[in-house]
């Protein structure tokens, strides 16, 4: 009799599990707070619904989202996902200041280096527009540091994506900026032109990974007047990583070789693209002093050597004519703003 009861119980449990699972899968909706990228399996592109809504699919990469009140809120750079709409340049980590979205507590964007968002900081927020981008010059809330290990992975999500970042002149970084200055970020190609890093208290300059600086990005470290040596203007597509037909993964690059991502002219030879000082040793990963003078033998230096005392900051870079920020409707038309010109 005991055996009979055991069999019956097991059968009942099995049936309930199957039915419960089916019901749960059937009733699943994903709540989104605002605009967001669409997964490849849905057709790729962007969802422009800027009010809370539901879909019958989950985000393709949760690293690009925060979950706020059970809703996914996209906190990344939308321009990597075929987004077309208002876009404002930012540099470094900053609080998310989308006026139409109430997020309760402070929520930070941990994207390093230059990037875009679809929102413009409100006047009361502590941002300064310099060198073509908004820089957060306020103090970071303790939650910024607490959550950084968890949310800075957003940069990993963008690492394989090749797309056009804003041109930002980091030589005019506001002194109040407490974030990281990244000379060249991972996965950047094309127009991510950066200037000489100005080192000020509290600013950490992160060494550019060597493979990235081989691409045609004009970089000048010190020396007046800065010269933009090479600037490629190809626009790249963010593509989805192939995941054996499941299409649950993230945007892909084919192959592991660095040059697989290059879709423009042939890559410049190593050494011809980097126009500034050599990056700091790999062991340290970052340096905190003034930029070392460039090696004359490298052939890459195009300006005068900085004075021995260091701290050369070059001529002031032209400020963008638009004080309210860089709102771009047409990339090619506007791409000359913000960076150094000669």
């Amino acid at each position, binding site marked *: 009799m005991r055996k009979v009861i055991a*069999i019956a119980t097991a059968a009942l449990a099995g049936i309930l599990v199957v039915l419960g699972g089916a019901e749960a899968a059937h009733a699943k909706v994903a709540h989104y707070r605002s605009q967001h990228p*669409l997964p490849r399996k849905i057709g790729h592109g962007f969802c422009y*619904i800027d009010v809370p809504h539901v879909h019958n699919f989950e985000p393709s990469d949760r690293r690009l989202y925060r979950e706020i009140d059970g809703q996914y809120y996209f906190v990344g750079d939308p321009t990597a996902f075929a987004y077309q709409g208002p876009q404002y340049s930012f540099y470094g980590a900053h609080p998310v200041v989308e006026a139409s979205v109430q997020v309760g507590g402070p929520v930070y964007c941990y994207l390093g280096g230059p990037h875009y968002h679809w929102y413009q900081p409100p006047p009361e927020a502590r941002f300064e527009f310099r060198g073509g981008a908004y820089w957060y010059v306020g103090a970071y809330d303790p939650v910024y540091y607490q959550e950084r290990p968890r949310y800075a992975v957003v940069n990993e999500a963008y690492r394989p994506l090749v797309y056009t970042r804003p041109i930002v002149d980091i030589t005019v970084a506001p002194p109040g900026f407490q974030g990281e200055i990244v000379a060249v970020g991972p996965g950047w190609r094309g127009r991510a032109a950066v200037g000489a890093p100005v080192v000020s208290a509290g600013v950490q300059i992160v060494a550019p990974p060597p493979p990235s600086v081989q691409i045609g990005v004009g970089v000048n470290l010190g020396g007046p007047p800065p010269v933009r040596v090479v600037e490629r203007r190809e626009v790249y597509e963010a593509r989805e990583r192939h995941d054996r037909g499941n299409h649950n993964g993230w945007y892909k690059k084919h192959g592991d070789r660095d040059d697989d991502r290059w879709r423009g002219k042939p890559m410049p030879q190593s050494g011809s693209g980097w126009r500034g000082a050599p990056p700091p040793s790999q062991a340290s990963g970052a340096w905190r002093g003034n930029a070392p003078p460039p090696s004359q033998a490298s052939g890459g230096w195009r300006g005068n050597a900085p004075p021995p005392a260091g701290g050369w900051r070059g001529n002031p870079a032209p400020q963008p004519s638009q004080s309210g920020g860089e709102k771009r409707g047409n990339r090619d038309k506007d791409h000359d703003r913000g960076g150094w010109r000669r």
Partner: protein
Amino acid sequence: MRKRSLALSLTAALFAMTAVASGCGKSKGTPTPAPVAPAASPGGAAPPVAPAHVEGTPHTNKIIHGLKSAGLRPEGFTSADPSRYGASFCENGRVNDIETMVCEFADGNSLARGKQLVTDEWGRAGVATGVTAQKGETLMAIADREHRDPNGKTINQIVSAFKKL
């Protein structure tokens, strides 16, 4: 032997019971029974109440007219069963080919419940995109079942027009 047959018949009975139970909850292709039952009167079942507009909140006809004025194409709007969502009055139709329902509720609580019921229904139906927006005690629910508006631009237009009314 007797024990085994007893176990088999018990299992079969359980299967039958669960199949019946699951069949009750699912209604593929047929309308879901009203999720909110009307309050019963002390003497018995409540008499059916004819759907009526709610005062103090935008009426469905005003909403539809407003959408038309905003350059959108509302069409085929007809009365729908409001009790299904605990509303007082509902109409559904299409705006720019996207299924849209407008409901008037008696108060904020019933609106919140109605909104939840709509979202639950979307989940069961596997709606590709669903948006709700409210104005006063009037709820607009837009459901893109066939993924006609993959980037949501039309839906956003409808919501914006509704909010501006």
